[in-house]
């Protein structure tokens, strides 16, 4: 039996999720210029919110998804307002913000573990009744196709908003230089708040995708690292880059797992990150 079509599909499936994760991280990092580890927690919050609403409360799927994304966005928004803004007001350095975000990440993970236990839980209600699509000798599920569509849709929306709206121009101005942006009349606090909401919401979509496709555990490090690698490799500040980075990461990981065994997956992923940091730190597609 030929494994190649399925391997290609595996890459595409993983690439979709990594792209989503990278897009959200890119939105946050390219604007605020600090490395928010809390992103791993916002993504998990999205997944667990849907778990709670859809599987426990029994709300219908569409509404659960919408609320899940909003709750994730709100978590990011509030974290920024309560923690990061207070620190930035005191002129805290990026190192201090980084350490604070490690606190946010750990706190978020621990709180989720307390409320939802460390048990591995799947979001889909009946994992057996999935619609399957065959391509050559490979298989892809309806959920996975939906995730892939979502990744490209989110990318498209972000590109349009960032490039063609007043809000997008304000965000780019802040990303270039916050103080100059303020002097020309941009309310940077409000814009950063909105950016945080959007970034965390996109992270929430990634968390929900992971929950449906694989399953949830209160461990956000994996999704955080995948987001970071894909965003850095693709190019910070470039939305197309994040998607490209996501698929490249999936390609390297799955070829590694296929040719050498699953134990090599992360080693290959990080090797790619280091190579890029050394030889092309601006990423494949610079800003």
């Amino acid at each position, binding site marked *: *039996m*030929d*494994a190649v079509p*399925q*391997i290609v599909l*595996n890459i595409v*499936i*993983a690439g979709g999720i990594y792209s989503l994760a990278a897009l959200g991280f890119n939105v946050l990092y390219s604007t605020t210029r600090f490395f928010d580890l809390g992103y791993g927690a916002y993504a998990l919050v999205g997944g667990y919110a849907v778990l709670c609403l859809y599987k426990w409360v029994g709300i219908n799927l569409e509404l659960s998804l919408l609320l899940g994304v909003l709750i994730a966005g709100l978590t990011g928004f509030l974290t920024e307002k309560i923690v990061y803004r207070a620190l930035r007001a005191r002129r805290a350095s990026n190192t201090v913000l980084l350490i604070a975000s490690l606190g946010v990440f750990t706190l978020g993970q621990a709180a989720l573990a307390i409320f939802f236990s*460390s*048990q*591995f839980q*799947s979001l889909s209600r*009946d*994992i*057996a*009744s*999935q619609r*399957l699509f065959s391509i050559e000798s490979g*298989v892809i*599920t309806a959920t996975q196709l939906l995730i892939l569509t979502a990744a490209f849709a989110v990318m498209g929306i972000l590109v349009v908003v960032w490039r063609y709206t007043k809000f997008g121009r304000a965000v780019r101005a802040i990303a270039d230089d916050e103080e100059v942006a303020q002097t020309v009349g941009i309310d940077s606090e409000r814009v950063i708040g909105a950016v945080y909401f959007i970034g965390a919401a996109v992270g929430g979509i990634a968390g929900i995708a*992971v929950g449906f496709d*694989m*399953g949830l*555990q209160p*461990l956000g490090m*994996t999704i955080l690292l995948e987001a970071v690698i894909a965003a850095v490799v693709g190019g910070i500040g470039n939305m197309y880059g994040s998607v490209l980075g996501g698929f490249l990461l999936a390609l390297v*990981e*799955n070829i590694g*797992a*296929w040719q050498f*065994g*699953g*134990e090599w*997956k*992360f080693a290959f992923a990080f090797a790619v990150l280091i190579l890029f940091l050394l030889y092309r730190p601006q990423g494949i597609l610079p800003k």
Partner: protein
Amino acid sequence: MNKWIWALIVIIIVGLGWWAIGFSGNSAQSGTGPIKIGSVLPLTGDAASIGTIDRAAVEIAVAEINAAGGVNGRQLEMIYEDGQCASTAASNAANKLMNADNVIAIIGGLCSTETATFAPAAMQKKVVVISPASSAPNLSQTGKYFFRDYPSDAFQGKFAAEYAYNTLGARKVAVIYHISDWGTGIKNVFETRFKELGGEIVSESGEPQTATDYRTDLTKAKAANPDYIYTPMYPQGDTALMKQASELGIKAKILGADGWDDPQLAKDAKNLGLDILYTTGKTGTTDAFKQKLQQKTKSPDVPVGAPQAYDAVYILANAMKSAGTDPDKLADTIRATKYDGVSGHIEFDQNGDLTVADYVVKRMANGTATVVQ
């Protein structure tokens, strides 16, 4: 100047404290005081639900022994430390027990990782270690003072290989395993034995315990066209693997290890259309012990290691009755033990492993797992 005086005072206090601890520790092991024994079990963290019940089993045994007059008139004093199913925590816990409390023996750890980190130090300090649940094969060579009344996975891997080859008629097997003391250990034993029998390992893939994407591992296994996929993995990985195998239309059957012995998995497997078998220890315990434990914990669970932890305390206490607290005599006496406990018949070999281990094969069907005859 002030700073220096403060530093000096702190050093003196710490030094005095150290001396006092050492002093009280020594006196505890002399003639008539209580005999101090340590326990390293996961009381928080991933395996806490198991560890806290195993601790209750130890408490029951200690209370019974003390109520019956202790060991040669001396009471047992248990000191419980938290190993968290993690290497650093277990190492700190055991160091505290050995250096500050001067325990003569440690019951634990539960997870193989815990035991593997602190047992070598215990061997150097001549502290007897009896683990009620650590099953990693590489623990067998730990040393003279190490015992476990739970079977080594060397037995389970071998049993699974023989069952796959002889009973299931498998000739080609693909392996997907979790990289850990337990997963890697059991996988190695399985592969060696399966090849000895004449079988072929057609593909092999390891994943970290936290992995949730097994698609490429499964695709690789599927392409090699095996009769069975052997999967010594932990439950959270099993859940993801089952679902993805079903999506990928894998027709090969799955043979798991005791990491699959989780009631939730059997429920999840219900409609997946997979044939899942797994090996697990023949766990029998007496109704009397079950009742005692349930009375104490107010929970119906008798998890892995609980009967073994109870037996471990008795084995240690019985040995001390004739050997005293001298570590060499104690180890020799424990090695010669023939004991019928609540976990079954216990005899140790040269490595401190059980001489016999019984396994059963279970099949998941209709939401439950039943023993295959």
